[in-house]
């Protein structure tokens, strides 16, 4: 049936009339030109982006000392990794920090975007710019200042807790405490950026749709859950994907959270992330092979996360 229907312009076609490439005059120079335009990018991209990515899988098969020799040991690095409790610990920390930073961050961003989306809001530019302040602050500076705010003896948080008659908390000593501290940094740094993305998405929803919903008797909450959220689906998926990639890269926060914690983020490795574990093995222990095996594990996690994301999004689409 659908095969016989002909040439009905789809929404997509109408949306992007300019996407048709220009036909190039077929002089030799003009036919070669596009390759010349993309070549500088792809040469650098190939050497410093693609090749290292592929080569990670090769180095992972070796016992590779940066100054000594390297010997092929097959999958030994991987069997060692699977039996290494430090790896599972780092994986757990990474996932834990990811969850307790991403969920509040995206919910907060959704709520704030809804507030900023009021048509007659005054000082809208001021509020939007203020949301972006954390984004221009470096992770290193963020880690240092949060280290002080969460300090056991003189930190602001513990002072407030003291007013509430709660005993001072040594955040870094415990797993959940150090996760909270790191998640607070991540959430702080990214909630505003995500707010702006959601706000942009909300502004792309035609006002008539809200008016139609009001005519049908929908209240504010129903409009938010039944109209705003579904319309934001592509943006939400985008922010979840970006947060996943960001979550797997957490490195500077646990490294700088305190001067004593070092490469393990505390004696009990309570907040060592996968990226920090990779660094510890590769550049702290000079075991490039094992470090690369951790890199391959990160790659596998990205692929699994992408598949989970894909299935979740296609299933929710089917349900609608």
């Amino acid at each position: 049936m659908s095969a016989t229907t002909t040439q009905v312009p789809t929404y997509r076609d109408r949306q992007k009339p300019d996407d048709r490439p220009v036909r190039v005059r077929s002089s030799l120079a003009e036919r070669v030109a596009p390759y010349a335009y993309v070549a500088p990018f792809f040469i650098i991209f190939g050497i410093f982006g693609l090749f290292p990515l592929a080569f990670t899988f090769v180095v992972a098969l070796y016992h590779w000392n940066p100054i000594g020799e390297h010997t092929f040991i097959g999958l030994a690095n991987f069997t060692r990794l699977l039996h290494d409790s430090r790896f599972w610990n780092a994986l757990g920390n990474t996932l834990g920090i990811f969850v307790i930073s991403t969920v509040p961050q995206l919910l907060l961003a959704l709520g704030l975007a809804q507030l900023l989306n009021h048509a007659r809001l005054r000082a809208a530019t001021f509020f939007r710019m203020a949301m972006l302040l954390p984004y221009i602050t470096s992770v290193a500076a963020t880690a240092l200042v949060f280290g002080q705010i969460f300090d056991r003896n003189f930190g602001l948080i513990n002072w407030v807790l003291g007013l509430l008659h709660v005993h001072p908390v040594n955040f870094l000593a415990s797993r959940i405490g150090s996760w909270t501290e790191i998640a607070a940094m991540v959430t702080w740094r990214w909630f505003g950026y995500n707010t702006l993305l959601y706000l942009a998405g909300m502004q792309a929803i035609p006002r008539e749709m809200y008016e139609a919903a009001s005519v049908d008797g929908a209240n504010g909450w129903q409009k938010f859950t039944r109209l705003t959220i579904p319309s934001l689906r592509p943006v939400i998926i985008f922010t979840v994907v970006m947060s996943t990639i960001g979550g797997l890269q957490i490195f500077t926060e646990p490294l700088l959270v305190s001067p004593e914690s070092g490469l393990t983020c505390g004696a009990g490795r309570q907040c060592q992330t996968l990226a920090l574990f990779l660094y510890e093995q590769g550049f702290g222990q000079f075991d490039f092979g094992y470090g690369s095996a951790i890199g391959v594990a990160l790659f596998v996690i990205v692929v699994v996360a992408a598949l989970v994301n894909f299935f979740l999004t296609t299933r929710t689409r089917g349900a609608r």
Partner: protein
Amino acid sequence: MAEMTVPTEASLRSPARRRRRRPGAVPWYVYLLLIIAVVISAFPLYYMFVVATAGASAVTSVPPRLYPGTDLVGVATRVFNTVPFVRALLNSAFVSLSVAVISVVLCAVAGFAFAKLEFRGRNALFVLVLLTMTVPAQLSVIPQYLIVSKLGWVDSLQAIIVPGLASAFGIFWMRQHMSSTVSDELMQAARLDGCGSWQLFWRIAFPVVRPAAFVLGLITFTAVWNDFMWPFIVLKSPELFTVQIALKQLQANRTVDVALALGGSFLATLPLLVTFAFAGRRMVSGIMDGAFKG
């Protein structure tokens, strides 16, 4: 009569609702919540400023000191005496500016080819770029280090600049803006006038996307200025450190002087804050535009 005494749900609700929806009426709690969000956004930066101006006593006072002092020069001097911080600021400025300018040019040219020219392998190459965007770059940090050391670039600034030039995000960004804002009619007309593809790029396409290119430059500058892990791996000599690595050095001295790390953090963030004061508005609209182009 009976109709009057049994008001419908709609008639009960409508006067209040109509009042709330009058143009200009943003409920007060919206402002309250937004101001709380602004305070949360700004507080860590403000706190850096407090410590940077009040000195070491601010970090050990109970209750915590929350108002600035007058000793900015004193704290800054100690920062400058502990690590080569001025040098670090210059290194960061040089590296960030080089990467921002060169990579925007590379990405604009390549983005133009992807958006507006036809060539064999176009889609395959672009999908390749998109796919690598979804993989955290640092998982291949060990082979990257091997390459940089083969080139003899370890402990040099080009080890940061050159690999930073090929940004997948940048090419994606420029392609989106090229395909959504540069009109094909204009391009066709220019072609009929005898323009080659380079002139199409330089005379027609680039001027149109210049605002987007500027925002990409700002985003790239910020990202390179703030980058930590890669400079931390490849830079060894203190005179080559970027500000972020200098901050790590300051933190190592934290047992001696607690205010150093936060004073340094403030000084390291200040150049970006100044840039943001001038260009923040464009950055905000650039990020919001960039989200859905194409």
